[in-house]
């Protein structure tokens, strides 16, 4: 059982995460509780209060008490808590300590100092229970995002926790991987583990959770039982700023005979020492339209974007824009990729410098006007890396526009975003297309595709298997 009484917590300065205040909560054994609400509402902080990262790892002012399975969290050490609570985090690349799957499963048990034979037995049982035989003997760096989250759950399971805490586990996953994640969670639930999930993507949890807590500004403002929550009307859901509660579906119309304005032809690329790569014969896309690229993790979506913008030196292929051929070097100058981790592509000391350096001829007036259009003028003199994720993304978009490049590519722009931020991103991308840019977006987010994309390319095993039209481009 988890009991939180009159709890308030504020991070020490220098952290952008929101704190929580006046939380009173009781979670029974075996219950599955969903925490939802907009970014910055305090969901993550609440999960950290339960697993002890707050206040033992993240400093701050704490008031009130938290009990996790009879242990006072503030008075116990993280080590003691780790034997009760297992945690799965959002970012699969920073939650594995070892580099091979077997050691990772054993890691938690090893830390408890269990005898080696006991650990081996537990690891074997976990492999059987979680059905992850196919992941064994592999390097963690070679696993897909979905496989990593499965392994994360399994390695927590091996240490036999009483409580499982998950912080946006589905953020980087495709549909199939989300189904797998759900299956794993169902197993944990049936084993009687108490589960607390903080999540933006909600539909996959239907039928799994018992109770839903809605948070705003660090407080729990609404509480639902699962049935009434998932039967909520769409208008009400949108007013709460929540993502869809039913699995989103796309309905395509017949291919229109519109004349296309850009063609990708004969893109071929293979990674060194592996069979993985892409082979795209001929795909037509449209200027002034947004084309989504879908497909499972590992289908070659990101690789296609990298080849398109000329980053892969050994890739073959040509891009035709209005009957003008773009070879690799020219593409490198005429395409802009907004990366999934935008922090990698911002270098300057201020947002204004960042935009100016992208311009063919630096022009301060123009740069400021551009920042204003993207709602960034307040931050013109701030360091780009001090901004929030969404703001960084807009700075990158500002650079893309400033560089006057014709093709703008996005890699998973909406992973881990709440409804409001997702809609904001889709508006900005829509404006890019309306200004005549050719926009390509890789995404798993069907809600986002529905909101703004015109065409959908589907990729499988490195090939484009379908090119369908979702809606007409609105003439402005």
């Amino acid at each position: 059982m988890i009991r939180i009484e009159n709890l308030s917590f504020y991070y020490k300065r220098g952290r952008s995460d929101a704190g929580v205040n006046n939380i009173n909560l009781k979670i029974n054994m075996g219950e599955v509780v969903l925490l939802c609400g907009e970014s910055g509402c305090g969901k993550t902080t609440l999960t950290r209060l339960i697993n002890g990262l707050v206040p033992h790892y993240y400093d701050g002012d704490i008031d009130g008490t938290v009990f996790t399975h009879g242990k006072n969290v503030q008075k116990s050490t993280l080590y003691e808590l780790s034997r009760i609570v297992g945690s799965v985090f959002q970012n699969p690349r920073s939650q594995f300590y070892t580099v091979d799957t077997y050691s990772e499963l054993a890691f938690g048990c090893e830390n408890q100092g269990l005898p080696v034979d006991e650990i081996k037995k537990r690891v074997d049982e976990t492999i059987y229970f979680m059905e992850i035989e196919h992941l064994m003997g592999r390097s963690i760096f070679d696993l897909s995002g979905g496989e990593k989250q499965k392994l994360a759950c399994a390695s927590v399971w091996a240490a036999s926790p009483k409580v499982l805490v998950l912080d946006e586990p589905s953020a980087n996953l495709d549909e199939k991987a989300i189904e797998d994640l759900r299956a794993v969670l169902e197993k944990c639930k049936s084993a009687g583990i108490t589960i607390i999930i903080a999540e933006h993507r909600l539909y996959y949890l239907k039928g799994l959770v018992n109770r839903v807590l809605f948070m705003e500004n660090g407080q729990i403002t609404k509480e639902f039982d699962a049935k009434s929550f998932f039967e909520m009307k769409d208008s009400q859901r949108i007013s709460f700023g929540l993502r869809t509660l039913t699995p989103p579906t796309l309905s395509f119309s017949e291919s229109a005979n519109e004349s296309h304005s850009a063609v990708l032809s004969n893109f071929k690329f293979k990674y060194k020492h592996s069979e993985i790569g892409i082979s795209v014969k001929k795909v037509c896309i449209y200027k002034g339209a947004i084309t989504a690229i879908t497909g499972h993790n590992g289908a070659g979506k990101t690789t296609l974007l990298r080849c398109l913008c000329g980053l892969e030196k050994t890739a073959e292929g040509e891009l035709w824009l209005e009957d003008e051929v773009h070879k690799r070097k020219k593409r490198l100058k005429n395409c802009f990729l907004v990366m999934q981790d935008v922090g990698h592509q911002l270098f300057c000391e201020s947002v204004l410098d960042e935009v100016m350096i992208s311009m063919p001829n630096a022009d301060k007036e123009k740069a400021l006007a551009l920042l204003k259009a993207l709602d960034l003028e307040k931050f013109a003199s701030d360091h780009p890396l001090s901004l929030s994720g969404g703001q960084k993304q807009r700075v990158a978009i500002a650079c893309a526009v400033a560089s006057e490049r014709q093709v703008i590519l996005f890699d998973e722009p909406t992973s881990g975003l709440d409804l409001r931020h997702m809609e904001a991103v889709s508006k900005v991308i829509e404006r890019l297309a309306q200004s005549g840019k050719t926009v390509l977006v890789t995404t798993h987010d069907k809600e986002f595709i529905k909101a703004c994309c015109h065409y959908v390319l589907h990729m499988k095993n490195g090939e484009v298997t379908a090119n369908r039209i979702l809606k007409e481009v609105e003439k402005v």
Partner: protein
Amino acid sequence: MNTFLHTTAGKRHLRLDPRTKFALILCTSFTLVWGMSLIGVMAVVRPALAFVPAILLLFTPRLRVGIVYGILEILCFTAEITVFQSTTGFWNLILLPVCAIITRYMPCVVAAYYMMATTTVSEFIAGMERMNVTQKIVIPLSVMFRFFPTIVREHRCINDAMRMRNITASNPVSMLEYRIVPLIAAVAKIGDELSAAALTRGFGGDVKRSNVCEIGFGVQDIIILLISFGGAFTSILAKVGLI
């Protein structure tokens, strides 16, 4: 995806104990950096130690690195024996430092590369624990060990972004700043998350950790250890003038 420095556990053919690898790195560095020029017994000891990492790499999926490195060593040792004496002036000035770097420093780097590329984090921890190193040293070192691939990968992403944005700076200092600042930001964030994840799984508690990783010395370890310590010992003897 990129595989540099990612350990290829499970795909290895020749398995060495992590302690053997430590010994190899130490002895190689000691003998090659401090050892004397290629006269007498050192004409055998130095090339022998320099070739050990090349031969070991041939047993891994990274055999191309091993071959290229082996050829470089052959060329430079040959140069040191043959053309050193006969060249003067400009060519001597070029040859001397190049050969010194390749025959004296590069083997240490390649031996370390071999260790990074073939040791899993748990093997590394197990090796350190068997040598009774305290947790205060094992934990930071293992974090570092876990971190090299991450730093390399983040660096590549930043490099790509710079190429894509066609960023060129007027002076090398700001060029360095453009690379280092985002790298530090990214690495600090990942390090933060990684530590949090490890702590929630009970790492660093006061209980003695157990380790499922089976390490131990085999015939291959004994051979490598003999070569390493033998080389180091001989070079000491040569230095003090006993051989």
